[in-house]
């Protein structure tokens, strides 16, 4: 059957199925309110979702039987399914654990938590743990060049692996697992420091502009506008190039320059948010009361405004952390970020990028550069899950 015929059949099945599903539900539950008041679109959604799950299950069953070159087609699919199932189980176990252990407040938190958020928290905890104890966890040093090069991940000698290097080695023989672990320390650690700096600069200036207003507000806001008008990545590339010269001249590590440059560029976004949140807080009566009491500026900003702005700022912190982290990875990928021989996920992707071309006939080989990319993606997704949940909680939405 041609592709178009497939699409048409599928559409007909889905749209008719939606109606049938709703009708069947109404008959089976003798007109329960849920099925009775179900809009047609929701019925279609159930059927479309069901079909998608069917396709996944069918493909997975087919992949179990496949062998040889045929199995290569399913390699990443199987990996994704296994990972999804495992992480769902891990998240569930973690949530059950959280509900049973801890103070009454944390137990309550875990009881109301969706699975995505518990997965996010678990992932962030693991990353933090790995980053802090990288030296103790990594089997080899990050700069250590071991004899064997280009060893495939999986540790199975039949496919070109080596049990000593479970995730393989790169083209000059450094252990990927160790470099991933040290990469957590370098990339995540630097990203965290940069985000903190960006928030310190952006939030304090934003609140200052909101509280004082007038020409200071104009000056700061227009400067920020000007900075935001330049595309961030290009701007940071430009500044990094200049900084590279200074780094040699003054003997200051380039990494310090990178932290400051990214922090300043990202602080503009934080400034915008802090100013917007701040202006809606400074009009409150309690700020007026504090002003009339004769309180100084720092008390107003840090004791009256800041505690009320923590929820939106914290949510922004999560997102901003992801962006900073991706910027660092991008800069490293482009070769101006974290400098070798320090392990960094962006650099690892770039160094091994050509192996991605092997994906079709030797997926195990293509996996090597994707491990670092996956580490980046996983952390970004995890942080976003947690931020979403926090925003949902602070907005007071109820199901």
């Amino acid at each position, binding site marked *: 059957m041609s592709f178009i015929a497939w699409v048409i059949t599928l559409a007909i099945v889905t749209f008719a199925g939606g109606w049938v599903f709703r009708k069947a539900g109404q008959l089976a539950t003798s007109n329960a*309110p849920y099925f*009775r*008041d179900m809009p047609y679109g929701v019925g279609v959604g159930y059927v479309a979702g069901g079909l998608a799950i069917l396709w996944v299950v069918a493909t997975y069953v087919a992949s179990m039987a496949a062998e040889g070159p045929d199995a290569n087609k399913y390699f990443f699919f199987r990996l994704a399914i296994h990972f999804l199932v495992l992480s769902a189980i891990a998240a569930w176990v973690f949530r059950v654990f959280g509900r049973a252990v801890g103070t009454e407040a944390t137990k*309550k938190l875990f*009881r*109301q938590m969706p699975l995505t958020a518990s997965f996010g928290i678990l992932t962030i905890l693991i990353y933090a743990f790995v980053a802090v104890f990288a030296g103790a966890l990594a089997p080899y040093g990050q700069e250590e060049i071991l004899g064997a090069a280009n060893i495939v991940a999986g540790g199975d000698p039949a496919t070109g692996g080596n049990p000593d290097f479970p995730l393989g080695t790169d083209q000059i023989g450094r252990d990927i697992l160790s470099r991933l672990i040290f990469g957590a320390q370098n990339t995540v650690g630097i990203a965290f420091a940069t985000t903190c700096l960006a928030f310190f600069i952006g939030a304090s200036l934003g609140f200052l502009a909101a509280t004082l207003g007038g020409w200071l507000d104009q000056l700061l806001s227009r400067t920020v506008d000007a900075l935001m008008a330049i595309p961030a990545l290009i701007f940071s590339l430009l500044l990094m190039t200049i900084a590279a010269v200074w780094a040699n001249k003054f003997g200051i590590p380039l990494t310090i320059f990178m932290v400051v440059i990214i922090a300043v560029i990202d602080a503009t976004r934080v400034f915008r948010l802090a100013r917007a949140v701040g202006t809606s807080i400074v009009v*409150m*009566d*309690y700020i*007026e*009361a504090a*002003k*009339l*009491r*004769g*309180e100084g500026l720092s008390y107003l900003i840090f004791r*009256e405004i800041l*505690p*009320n702005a923590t929820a939106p700022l914290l949510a922004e912190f999560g997102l901003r952390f992801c962006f900073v982290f991706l910027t660092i990875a991008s800069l490293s990928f482009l070769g101006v970020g974290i400098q070798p021989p320090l392990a960094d996920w962006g650099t690892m992707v770039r160094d091994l990028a050509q192996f991605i071309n092997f994906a079709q006939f030797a997926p195990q080989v293509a996996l090597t550069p994707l491990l670092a990319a996956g580490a980046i993606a996983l952390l970004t997704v995890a942080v976003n899950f947690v931020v979403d949940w926090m925003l949902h909680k602070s907005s007071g939405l*109820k199901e």
Partner: protein
Amino acid sequence: MNTKSNEQLVKIRGLKIEGRSDETWNPIINGVDLDLNKGEVLGLIGESGAGKSTIGLASMGFCRDGVRISEGTVEFDGIDLIKASAAVKRSLLGKRIAYVAQSAAASFNPAHKLIDQHTEAPTQHGVSGRKESEEDGIELYRRLRLPNPDEIGFRYPHQVSGGQLQRAMTAMAMACRPDLIIFDEPTTALDVTTQIEVLAAIRDIVEQFDTAAIYITHDLAVVAQMADKIKVLLKGDEVEESDTRTMLANPQEDYTKSLWAVRSFERPKKPAVSTGATPVVSVQGVTAAYGTVDVLHDVNFDMHEGRTVAVVGESGSGKSTTARCITGLLPPRIGHIEFDGAQMPLDYRKRDKTQLRQAQMIYQMADTALNPRKTIGELIGRPVEFYMGLKGAEKRKRVEFLLDEIELEPSKFIDRLPSELSGGQKQRIGIARALAAEPKFIICDEVTSALDQLVAEGILKLLAKLQDELKLTYMFITHDLATVRAIADEVVVMKDGKVVEQGEKEDMFKPPHHPYTDLLLSSVPEMDPDWLSNLLEERGVDNIGDAAVDKM
């Protein structure tokens, strides 16, 4: 009143409603029965949290997010609304049942013109075409006595005043000629002079179309004008129900009697101020402007030790602006403020700590006046530390003393956050914070207008007690003349940024008045169910409310 058919329209039996919080379902309504015949108006009264609005919504078969109807039946004209399908409810709501919300300003969609929102329900329900319903809307605007009925519908909500919006919303509810309208506190947010117009309009139109209505309010005097019968609620339980006249003349339950008694609180008269005494605060020829527009014009008045000066007027009359001039938030353009005979710097930034300490403020909305992230101990402790320099145990002792003063138990409240307190308790914290500075003079900006009557009475009594103990001077900004009667010694009436009349309270409540004072006084609803009819008869429908103000 008009003749009632005995056909039953709404029948609620054993209604129980629960709300979800802290992972459990808590009861909100514990089994209420309600009957409403066609063309009848039922008044639902009770303090906040009594479940008035919840019952109002439930009689439409609706409940808010996180709330569920757990038991009971709601029948509208023989249709069970709880079991009815969404399609059936859709065909009823907006067409046969309409709802008028408390804040019309927040309920209209600011992006569409009034008439477009008006015609939406009739065209959606297929009652009439767009053109007809537009004409009908203009006719309804005319009947509701909106100014420029032909043109007002083509404005956006922000171009129309609050009282007019509330009437436009009533017109919108009428668009499909429903059998039942639920009015949820439709006049609570309005000035007295505006309120009276809206009340007259609502009553008129409900009678003209013989519509049944559920009128929700916490103001007894208002409900006395509107309702045929009254149901009193307390914490989700019905206290009693009877027809309006019986209820007013002869309430059965203690709770109802206490509601009725609130309005009788009045302080004894104080001796007159000795001539030549220096006033604590003196406003001297103040003219102030926002930008280039003058909003206060040559305002003069004195406030003496131990006395309460009530500043009265409707919104926009310059009451709060005068307070801002006194505190220095808005430096006057001409004139100055004297404290104890000494001139104060105009701008609060130029005043020193002792000067700032002298004048404290209590705000209308305790929710926004208390930092939600600070505990009660921190909120009251800060001025103690800031002005008196007390720290540690001494500070705590002082805070505990202040909490005792405002009749809240220190050990129970000191570590709580404002969100864990009720409205009245929050307002008490606001008072304690002002007291912590040990001032001579306190500005009370509409401190009771957001509170229920019983709670407001408690606050007024507390303020009176503190005044007697500490010789405080109050500037009491309000638009509620019942409050003035209860607490004031002197009254200043303001209109359009000018003082139109001032003097002792007794003189103010006795004629002759300035015509504006007269209008204000006559617009305050009384508990007599015939009050509105008599007033309309006496003054004529064109001589009440904003229409009368415009003529001055």
